[in-house]
């Protein structure tokens, strides 16, 4: 109870410090809700699967229809060919029969004209007739209907004619009338016509079938083309909606980033106001002269403003370079004729260091103007810094008085309290030595590993 550690408890045992930016950046983005986006993509996918199934069904139906049409066309073709073959055979048989009859007739004439050698030819024709007539009639019977009747008639007439010729030859008289021959020719012509008509009909039917098949195939082709166009359209639309979604996601990410940055900025501004208020009240508390108090307050607020001005670029995550900070905070105090030399590697500072560093170097510069190298017009201030592999920024602040004399440590005012406080805030250490030529201060600022990575990445780019 009532214990008052002075000035503050050791903070070395604190949890490892997390870079403020990294900490806030790991929060999940507010706009992108993974559940709703998954549902959205599912919703987009569902109609596409239905359409695909429908398209498959239609394709299958079209294929069935195509196959049926082609089969039917082939069957018709085959039938027509068979009909044609049959008709050709029948005609050949009719011709054979007629040939036998002509043969018999010419042989019979020969016999009648006194050529007895022709008798065997006639007998051969007579013997061949029944078989040929039988074959022909069988063929015409297969064709059926009228042809069958005609065939029987042809056969009867042929046999009748053969019998007549045989009788005349036997009586050696030729009294047979010419009419049965003419009748024969008429019948065979009728059969030929009939067969030709049948053939024509078969051809016509085959042509019609082929035309129908062509039409169906054309329709199938058109449908396939249409389906392909539809599929292409769907794919195009899917790609477009996909790219639109990507675009929306990108916008959401950017908006979240902007939100984050604006929140951070607002937070920082409020914090800075609070710090400014405390600068005013703390300075006023330690300074009795109101004019001096106002002056000190102004200079401290100005240092703070300068340090933070550097970080107000577009990217809040990247803050200021250490060299720029020194330039902004320290150089304004450099009196005309005096010298400021700064050298060190390009190094990006983490945001948390801006306020304490601004205040520390402001106090150091103020002291230099009051009591140190810059108290005369030809003094020199040299600031060198190095960034070691152990993630420590080491700054050597060396003052070179114009004329060597007794250096004045200056009074331990509130300025040094402010330095101590800021050092604590930055977890930094400072060692001060007063030599012949003035103050030499060595400051060590430890960086966290995340800050170091960031610093190195950014430094490498510069």
């Amino acid at each position, binding site marked *: *109870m*009532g*214990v*008052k*550690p002075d000035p*503050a*408890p*050791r*903070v070395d*045992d*604190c*949890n490892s*410090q*997390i*870079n*403020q930016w*990294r*900490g*806030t950046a790991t929060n999940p983005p507010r706009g992108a809700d993974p559940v709703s986006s998954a549902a959205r993509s599912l919703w987009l996918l569902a109609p596409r699967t239905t359409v695909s199934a429908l398209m498959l069904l239609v394709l299958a139906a079209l294929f069935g229809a195509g196959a049926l049409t082609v089969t039917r066309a082939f069957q018709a073709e085959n039938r027509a060919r068979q009909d044609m073959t049959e008709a050709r055979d029948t005609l050949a048989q009719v011709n054979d029969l007629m040939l036998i009859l002509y043969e018999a007739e010419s042989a019979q004439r020969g016999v009648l004209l006194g050529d007895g050698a022709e008798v065997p030819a006639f007998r051969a024709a007579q013997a061949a007739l029944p078989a040929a007539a039988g074959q022909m009639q069988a063929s015409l019977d297969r064709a059926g209907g009228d042809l069958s009747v005609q065939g029987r008639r042809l056969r009867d007439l042929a046999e009748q004619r053969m019998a007549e010729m045989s009788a005349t030859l036997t009586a050696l008289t030729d009294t047979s009338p010419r009419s049965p021959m003419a009748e024969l020719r008429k019948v065979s012509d009728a059969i030929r016509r009939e067969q030709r008509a049948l053939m024509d009909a078969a051809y016509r039917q085959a042509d019609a079938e082929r035309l129908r098949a062509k039409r169906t195939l054309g329709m199938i082709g058109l449908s396939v083309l249409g389906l392909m166009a539809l599929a292409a359209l769907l794919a195009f639309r899917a790609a477009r909606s996909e790219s639109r979604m990507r675009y929306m996601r990108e916008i959401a990410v950017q908006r979240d980033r902007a939100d984050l940055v604006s*929140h951070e900025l*607002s*937070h*920082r*501004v*409020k*914090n800075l*106001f*609070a*710090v*400014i*208020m*405390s*600068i005013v*009240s*703390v300075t006023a*508390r330690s300074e009795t002269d109101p004019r001096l108090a106002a002056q000190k307050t102004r200079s401290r607020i100005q240092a703070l403003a300068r340090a933070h001005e550097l970080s107000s670029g577009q990217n809040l995550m990247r803050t200021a370079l250490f060299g720029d900070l020194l330039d902004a905070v320290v150089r304004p105090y450099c009196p005309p004729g005096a010298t400021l030399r700064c050298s060190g590697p390009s190094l990006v500072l983490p945001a*948390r260091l801006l*306020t*304490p560093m601004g*205040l520390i170097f402001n106090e150091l510069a103020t002291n230099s103007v009051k009591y140190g190298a810059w108290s005369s017009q030809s003094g020199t201030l040299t600031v060198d810094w190095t960034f070691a592999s152990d993630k420590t920024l080491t700054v050597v602040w060396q003052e070179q008085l114009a004329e060597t004399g007794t250096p004045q440590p200056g009074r331990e005012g509130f300025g040094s*309290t*402010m330095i101590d*406080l*800021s050092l*604590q*805030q930055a977890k930094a250490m400072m060692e001060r030595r007063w030599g012949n030529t003035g103050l030499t201060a060595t400051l060590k600022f430890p960086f966290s590993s995340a800050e170091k990575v960031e610093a190195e990445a950014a430094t490498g780019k510069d």
Partner: protein
Amino acid sequence: MVVEDEALLALDLAMTMEELGAAVVGPCYRLGAALDLVSRMKIDGAILDVDLNGETVFPLARYLDEQGVPFVFHTGRADPASLLEAFGRARICTKPSTPERIAACLAEALADADRGSDNDNYAPAYVQDGSSASSQQA
């Protein structure tokens, strides 16, 4: 107890509280140090900055809540409502607030704690005088 990562602000708060008669524990700049301190000593009230260099002060706030120690959040956060959701009894001073205003808030919180937990009315009435916090250990 003062927990605040801005050193100057912490100093200002601590000095103001001391001027008002409180014995100040801290200021603590980091959560770890603050948690260590409260585990070793008893405190009567606390002023807590919410964001401590990337960490939140919530583990400490929960601990104090469990112990029945009243506290005031001093924060630049834009959403005090979410703080009230998590810590119903807490009082909130948005940054920037004068140390006197913060002290008044803490005094109210201490008064509420004294009245007992049956009083659920925490209207943030502005208390003009921070002297009610005197003789308390803040």
